[in-house]
């Protein structure tokens, strides 16, 4: 047991564990100290100094986020000295910040704005520094816009990019008045090692890093009578959207979301879950085929372990960082891109719509999906497979723009076809979900029986541990797959690119012998995606995850191969998994990218 430290905050005695900070100790007393550079997910920086407090016996005011408690300490969080200093600091930050709040994308969602409001800063007391700097906005990336004029240099993004993602596309450059958050050689984000994961966007307290929004383009498509606008929604959107519309985290809003999308004017509201199930079919068979080639045919060219390819942030990471392992990636497109390709082929044919008139929109928990939809490989339908990608946050904005009272909306179902989903597809939204869904199907294909876990819940691959391993023993195979009899399928799940790196390094160093790896770029998987409502922290991600698994267990069909629309599409259109048409429309290839 750790030692207890006794201290007083604002005269109130409190005993806390050793190594607790003043900020944490104050929180335990429900004393709110404002912060800015501090973030639950990140290491302590102590950069912004907004959280300074008075400490008896100290000449200076320490930053409460970075100051550990000590025995007998007396802290005052609300003295005139503290208040004056805090106001000065906020004032200084404002003087360096392009405060065009009314036209800022983050208007109303900006932490600096909130602090200024809380401290009733009504007159700028210092000289506006913004005109003295030669700021240029970086708008080259299809995913992320970086506006240095709004940057308050708290380095949350830098810490995110380095600690959580091990990408370090963002770092600090220069010193003094010229100090800024920058990229390699100050190249645009589009040309550096950035994976577009958007985790920086999720943690930026101001409008300095935001997703590139496509609201106007989508409204224009909706209002265009010549266009048939199809929208798909990813599994992780339905458990987080409510947060931006006044609901608690972890509330499932699938039915209301579908109603809202219909009310917004989309011609067809469909579910990415449908292609998530299709991904399982394609990817599951791809894995089994690779295993057969490796084990039976002894084909040395087969690349194992096979890695999932659903997460575009992960794809770009491996393209930059481990290009020698591109052959290990599943050739499957992500569910979003499979959907896009089918929307302008299968869907168009069946509904008898000219594919050139179809506008394909997706609602994703992800900023990297915007980049993914722009990849030149993603035009196998003959058109751009997905025209515009909106984040969960952008959908919430559209719902507000349309004046819908979200919580009062009735619930409705996705349109058919390409709207049917299963529990297996829903859990794609959480880390380990693709693995679990794949195992549910692959095991059954190989043995003719359900996976031997309680109620299909493959708990070893669930959880928030950064890297999780599970081994499934295959027994009682059907004749076609009997070469797998007694085999132990070794799997690994990782989320957050720092954990991806750990897994890849262990594969590279020959320290592990996995067959199948699920890797998601974002912490918690898609539920913690860069396009999800802000703020994010471990507690919020946990609630979203619980909601995902609750949605799964409530569903009638929980295995991808039992999705009736998936069965139908193979019958009517694709013929069989890994067939000719599948290859043409649903599979892709990857390329090596620069490493800086």
């Amino acid at each position, binding site marked *: 047991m750790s030692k207890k430290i006794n201290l007083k905050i604002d005269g109130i005695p409190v005993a806390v564990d050793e190594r607790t900070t003043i900020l944490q100790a104050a929180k335990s007393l429900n004393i709110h100290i404002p912060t800015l550079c501090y973030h639950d997910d990140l290491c302590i920086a102590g950069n912004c100094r907004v959280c300074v407090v008075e400490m008896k016996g100290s000449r200076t005011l320490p930053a409460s986020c970075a100051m550990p408690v000590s025995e007998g300490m007396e802290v005052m969080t609300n003295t005139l000295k503290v208040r004056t*200093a805090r106001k000065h*600091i906020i004032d200084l930050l404002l003087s360096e910040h392009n405060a065009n709040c009314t036209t800022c994308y983050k208007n109303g969602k900006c932490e600096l704005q909130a602090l200024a409001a809380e401290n009733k800063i009504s007159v700028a007391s210092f000289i506006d520094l913004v005109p003295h700097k030669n700021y240029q906005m970086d708008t080259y990336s299809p995913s992320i816009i970086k506006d240095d004029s709004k940057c308050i240099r708290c380095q949350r993004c830098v810490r995110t990019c380095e600690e959580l993602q091990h990408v370090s596309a963002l770092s600090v450059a220069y010193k003094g008045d010229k100090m800024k958050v920058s990229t390699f050689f100050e190249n645009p984000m589009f040309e550096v090692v950035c994976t577009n994961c958007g985790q920086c966007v999720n943690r930026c307290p101001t409008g300095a890093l935001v997703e590139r929004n496509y609201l106007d383009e989508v409204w224009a498509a909706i209002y265009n009578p010549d266009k048939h606008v199809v929208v798909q929604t990813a599994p992780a959107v339905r458990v987080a959207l409510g947060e931006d519309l006044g609901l608690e985290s972890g509330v499932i809003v699938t039915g209301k979301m579908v109603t809202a999308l219909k009310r917004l004017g989309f011609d067809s509201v469909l579910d990415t879950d449908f292609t998530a199930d299709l991904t399982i079919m394609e990817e599951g068979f791809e894995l089994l085929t690779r295993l057969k080639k490796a084990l039976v045919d002894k084909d040395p060219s087969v690349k194992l372990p096979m890695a999932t390819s659903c997460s575009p942030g992960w794809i770009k990471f491996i393209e930059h960082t481990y290009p020698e392992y591109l052959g290990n990636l599943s050739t499957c497109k992500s569910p979003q891109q499979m959907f896009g390709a089918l929307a302008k082929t299968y869907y168009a044919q069946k509904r008898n719509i000219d594919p050139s008139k179809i506008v394909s929109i997706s609602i994703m928990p992800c900023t990297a999906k915007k980049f993914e939809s722009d990849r030149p490989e993603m035009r196998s339908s003959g058109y751009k497979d997905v025209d515009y990608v909106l984040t969960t946050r952008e959908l919430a904005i559209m719902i507000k723009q349309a004046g819908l009272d979200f919580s009062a909306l009735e619930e409705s179902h996705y349109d058919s076809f390409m709207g049917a989903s299963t529990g297996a597809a829903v859990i794609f939204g959480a880390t380990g979900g693709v693995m679990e869904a794949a195992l549910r199907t692959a095991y059954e294909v190989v043995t003719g029986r359900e996976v031997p876990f309680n109620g299909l819940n493959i708990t070893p691959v669930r959880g928030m541990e950064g890297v999780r391993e599970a081994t499934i023993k295959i027994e009682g195979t059907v004749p076609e797959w009997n070469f797998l009899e007694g085999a132990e399928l070794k799997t690994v799940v990782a989320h957050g690119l720092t954990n991806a790196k750990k897994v890849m390094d262990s594969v590279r160093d020959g320290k592990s012998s996995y067959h199948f790896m699920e890797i998601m770029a974002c912490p918690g998987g898609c539920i913690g995606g860069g396009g999800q409502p802000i703020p994010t922290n471990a507690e919020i991600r946990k609630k979203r995850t619980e909601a995902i698994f609750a949605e799964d267990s409530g569903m009638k069909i929980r295995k991808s191969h039992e999705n009736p629309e998936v069965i139908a599409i193979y019958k009517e259109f694709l013929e069989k998994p890994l067939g000719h048409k599948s290859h043409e429309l649903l599979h892709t290839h990857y390329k090596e990218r620069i490493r800086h």
Partner: protein
Amino acid sequence: MSYSNLKRVDLIFDKECNPKEIIKNTWAKSNDQIINELLESGLKGRGGAGFPTALKWKYTAEQPEPDKYIICNADEGEPGTFKDREILFKVPQKVFGGMVVGAKVIGAKEGFIYLRGEYRFLLPELEAQLEIFHASLKDLKIDFRIKIIMGSGAYICGEESALFESMEGHRGEPRNKPPYPTISGFRSKPTVINNVETLVYAFMICMHGARKFKDLGTADSRGSKVFSISGDTPKAGIYELELGMTVEQFVEEFGDGDTKAVQVGGASGFCVPRKKFKETIIGFEGVPTGGSMMLFNSSRSMFNVLHNYLEFFEEESCGQCTPCRVGCQQLILGIEAVKKGERHANYLEHLQKLAQTMKITAKCGLGQSVANSFFSIVENFKEEMIY
């Protein structure tokens, strides 16, 4: 050279010294004896902050961690300070000697000299001197090595924790404190970091004993100190003087007869105007200094002096913490605006309050000390700021 009022001391640059002999003799003593000798001498760090050297060594020695380091901070960057350059140039063996004694006391096997980027020209000679030093350690069967690491020319890297960051290959930004270096310094191990001059004095105390040092100076400021003197003076240069003199005594000796102000401690130090020369002691009971002494005569604009200092800080701040990064920019634009009449003279009071906030909220000594020159110049030369 003679000094009418000031007592010249010759501890540091005295050539009568055999470092190998001192090391040998010191090795015969216990660590407690060495620490007590240092404690008795009253030696405080010569970098400016003035922490008792004996305590720094003692706290580090008490750490159970087996890997420890001793680092010589030779990142001398304060405007007007050039004493460490002279010491490293003239008596490097004494610097190394101080390091090996410190290493013995704390139990370090490795030491580093973090050398200012601009002092690269000293490197070949220092390396040659180190070879001689390492050879004598070998003769004495002492297992300790010193490496020289070059800085890249950032003032902030003189701040001890930014210096560690720089040595570890990171961007030179100060760390949060606590933990202090005595517990977690270079490579997160207990570390003693001393200024060049401090190490030499520690070594001299080992040679002469505490008495000789303690008999110099005042109760708060023991011993002698090396000053680098510049500005409007006919005697610019390096001088080792007894502590405890007043600014008046100093100006009598070094001024040009028209001195209107003395900047004690460089840009991060204090400006003493003529009317306060008599009452101001140079030392910890008055104005402390790392050694920089700049004299200004009546031909100088104190607005320009302050403007120069602020420009220096505006550029040399690491930029990570708000009060220092933005505060410096506001102070400089603020005094410009007042001078040009774009802001009312009372804006200076607003800036003084800002400087006060910087002094108590900045993350490290750099940001905290900007207020020193700002306050002392604005308060004492207000009319020069406005008209």
